[in-house]
């Protein structure tokens, strides 16, 4: 009886999967086998894997996404942890999300103002005697702003995982004589791992395909897979090649899912 009812409720979801996920994916895979002249071909893949430019771009893109995710995680985990212990935690959490409601382009322009040669940061650097520095269009500013944008998307799932944790585990651990550090590493952190995983998925994957920031903040010195796809779809109108890179991106995503996906239920036990 239960299963039948559940089936009825999940119809919209299944429909969504079929119409908005599987159909477009099939379309992209199909497109990736079509050459510029409209015939079926493997040329796009050949071009991709034979071109050092594309391979280097893929590597760079993964590297940047990795760095961004790492930085976001390092900043967000403690924030989520502390947040979870505050008095009005739900309110604070909502206030973490709120900045994302302001348009991304506007925030990017604000950062341009903050980082530019005559901007606030450089005024400050001048004031303390370091002198103005080129900040915009550097790896630093790109990673900084990308991390800025992704932080709420990491805090949210980690916070949720921490919040749901049964406090009795922690008190049990303390009762058993574990110190705060041990409690954290052996009880709290493993239990919050699910949140970390969803956070990593929600940050790493979009970071692979950032495109607007690469121009606005990175000055196109940073090229990601997303930039290349954008270019192929919008400029050269070579949808075949764009789709090929899209397929690569989907495969990369599957790999991430595999790494961060749930393993066996058994939990590794630290001695």
């Amino acid at each position, binding site marked *: 009886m239960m299963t039948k009812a559940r089936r009825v409720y999940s119809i919209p979801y299944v429909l969504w999967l079929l119409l908005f996920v599987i159909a477009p994916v099939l379309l992209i895979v199909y497109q990736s086998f079509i050459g510029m002249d409209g015939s079926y071909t493997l040329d796009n893949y050949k071009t991709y894997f034979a071109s050092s430019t594309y391979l280097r771009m893929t590597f760079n893109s993964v590297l940047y996404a990795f760095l961004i995710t790492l930085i976001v995680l390092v900043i967000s985990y403690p924030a989520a942890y502390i947040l979870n212990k505050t008095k009005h935690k739900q309110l604070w959490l909502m206030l973490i999300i709120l900045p994302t409601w302001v348009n991304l382009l506007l925030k990017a322009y604000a950062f341009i103002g903050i980082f*530019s*040669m005559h901007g606030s940061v450089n005024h400050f650097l001048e004031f303390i005697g370091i002198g103005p520095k080129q900040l915009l269009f550097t790896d630093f500013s790109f990673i900084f702003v990308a991390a800025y944008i992704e932080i709420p998307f990491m805090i949210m799932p980690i916070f949720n995982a921490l919040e749901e944790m049964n406090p009795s585990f922690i008190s049990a651990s303390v009762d058993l004589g574990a110190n705060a550090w041990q409690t954290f590493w052996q009880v709290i952190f493993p239990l919050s791992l699910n949140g970390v995983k969803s956070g990593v998925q929600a940050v790493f994957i979009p970071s692979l395909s950032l495109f607007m920031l690469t121009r606005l903040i990175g000055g196109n010195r940073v090229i990601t897979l997303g930039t290349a796809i954008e270019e192929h779809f919008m400029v050269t109108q*070579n949808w075949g090649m764009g789709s090929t890179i899209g397929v690569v991106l989907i495969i990369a995503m599957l790999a991430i899912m595999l790494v961060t996906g749930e393993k066996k239920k058994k939990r590794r036990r630290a001695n």
Partner: protein
Amino acid sequence: MKNLKVLFIGILAIIGVLFVSSRQLEKAQGFSGSNTVTIYNWGDYIDPALLKKFEKETGYKVSYETFDSNEAMFTKIQQGGTGYDITIPSEYMIQKMMKADMLVPLDYGKIKGMQHIDSRFLDLDFDPENKYSIPYFWGTLGIIYNDKFVAKQDMQHWDDLWQKGLANNVMLIDGAREVIGLSLNSLGYSLNSLNNKELTQASKKLDSLPTNVKAIVADEIKMYMINEESAVAVSFSGEAAEMLDGNDHLHYVIPSEGSNLWFDNIVIPKTVRNKEGAYAFINFMLKPENAAQNAEYIGYSTPNKEALDLLPKDISQDKQFYPDDSTISHLEVYKDLGPEYLGIYNDLFLEFKMHRK
């Protein structure tokens, strides 16, 4: 659950309020099917006061939608779904749309005011006899420099971008045709080159440019140049006009060895629903006083010679934006390269972008 129910009802109430007020506002603006002209244009590419004037004079309602690249516009119009009556693409895109059979041939019986257009801008290669398009604005690609950092004699040619003193001080427009094209021009080749040897040479030459390049950006160039973030930039004349307005130290140069001459023309796409309205709009924009008002507002160069007479002398006689015939004769209009070469240009540009300093 109770909490969730309250939230759910609250959200439904908000949705209801928003829906009703949005409907009210639409009604107040008086949109109804048949008397609407749907214009698809670049963002901020017309004086809004002109749209109001057009509505008042003709009784049509304007539904104004915007795009931010020729290619995006092409995709939208090709897929249909919206009855765009008017759009304003650049010349190479007009050629492409003609090939794809997406444009309606103009009926000159319904158009008044063609005699106002400067004949230099009519009957060009991309649209012989102006069968499909009417000039809206035109311009060039060139170099903007700040005289605080660069002397006039040091910045007259494309080659000057490579000079030693400019490390990390050049901004380029984010376009494959523009960047590869300037390299081709600097070598004395055509910017429409379909010669692989020339292209390899051009891309080799670009290999040594990245040390000077600060960023490859788009609309933001304007802001950066006005704020003196960079000494030199490569951009379009229309953009340059606005920069010069914002900072007296800036100047615009069209390199004499050659550069790009571009047009944005009005066309009627096949998606048209209100042909009469479309022609009314074309006629409205051809009127010298309207074209002049628009040119003054946007800051781009108008092809309407009667309008030019109405503009203040310091605009109409500015050689930077209304160059003389001898300069124009060195300029080239982009030709549709065909998919294969467009791909090559784009890949070379991608490689250029990926050069690390």
